[in-house]
């Protein structure tokens, strides 16, 4: 096992990866407030997967990394309305007991891991045709 990278340095790594656009093309993320020394609040976007009702839609999310991150997963919620079994329709919160990477969270996982998995979840055969709220509506 390697050295345990502390929260803040881990978040700086993720920030740099996100800023340089080194990550997956269909997902992006960045700090909500560039002055936030604690780097707690982040914005993410997911480009809807092709061959699904989400195709060509862009979904916005909020990610909150608490003090225990990355030992515990961040809290995630959609700001764009979306109809998915793992999303609470009242407030857009992602239910951590319904997304496999949150259920079996590992320290190596990143915000990008979650965004990519959410995108994959949207494209699952049982989810890709679910009726969706109007494009651009928010919680």
């Amino acid at each position, binding site marked *: *096992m390697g050295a345990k990278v502390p929260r*803040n340095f881990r978040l700086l790594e993720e920030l740099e990866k996100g800023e340089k656009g080194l990550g997956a093309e269909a997902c992006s993320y960045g700090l909500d407030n560039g002055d936030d020394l604690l780097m707690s609040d982040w914005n993410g976007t997911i480009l809807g997967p092709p061959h699904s009702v989400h195709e060509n839609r862009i979904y916005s999310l909020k990610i909150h990394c608490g003090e225990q991150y990355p030992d515990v997963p961040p809290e995630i919620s959609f700001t764009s309305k979306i109809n998915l079994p793992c999303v609470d329709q009242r407030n857009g919160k992602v239910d951590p007991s319904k997304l496999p990477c949150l259920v079996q969270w590992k320290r190596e996982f990143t915000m990008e891991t979650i965004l990519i998995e959410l995108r994959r979840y949207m494209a699952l055969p049982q989810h890709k045709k679910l009726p969706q709220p109007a494009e651009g509506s928010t919680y």
Partner: protein
Amino acid sequence: MALSKRIIKETQRLAEDAVPGISAVPHDDNLRYFDVTIDGPSQSPYEGGVFKAELFLPDDYPMTPPKIRFLTRIYHPNIDRLGRICLDVLKSNWSPALQIRTILLSIQALLGAPNPDDPLANDVAQAWKQDEQAAIATAREWTEKHAKP
């Protein structure tokens, strides 16, 4: 992962033979992660301030440099809003012959000698070049506001 002899020695020396105006104390649960304080150098706009920072020794230290950033807000052309530091010895000019103590001294020296021609915080560097006296006054205000215990 076992801590290298090199890190153990450096840590001991930081405690026993401390550098005036600088402290670095490892976390109990992660001996590669240090709480750092750096006193602002005298005759600089940071004088009288105590600046908190955090330092982490990555797996391949000392082949790669320590990672370090300020946790106290500081108005300086080579330090950005998240406390990240632009300093050659932390990047391309790192050598395994350098140590935590020499790096912290270099950072303290950087506080005393800002370099607006190699900026990380562009807005601050511009202010520094346009009106150095005003920029220094702002740096002094920030020290007063954020770095006084």
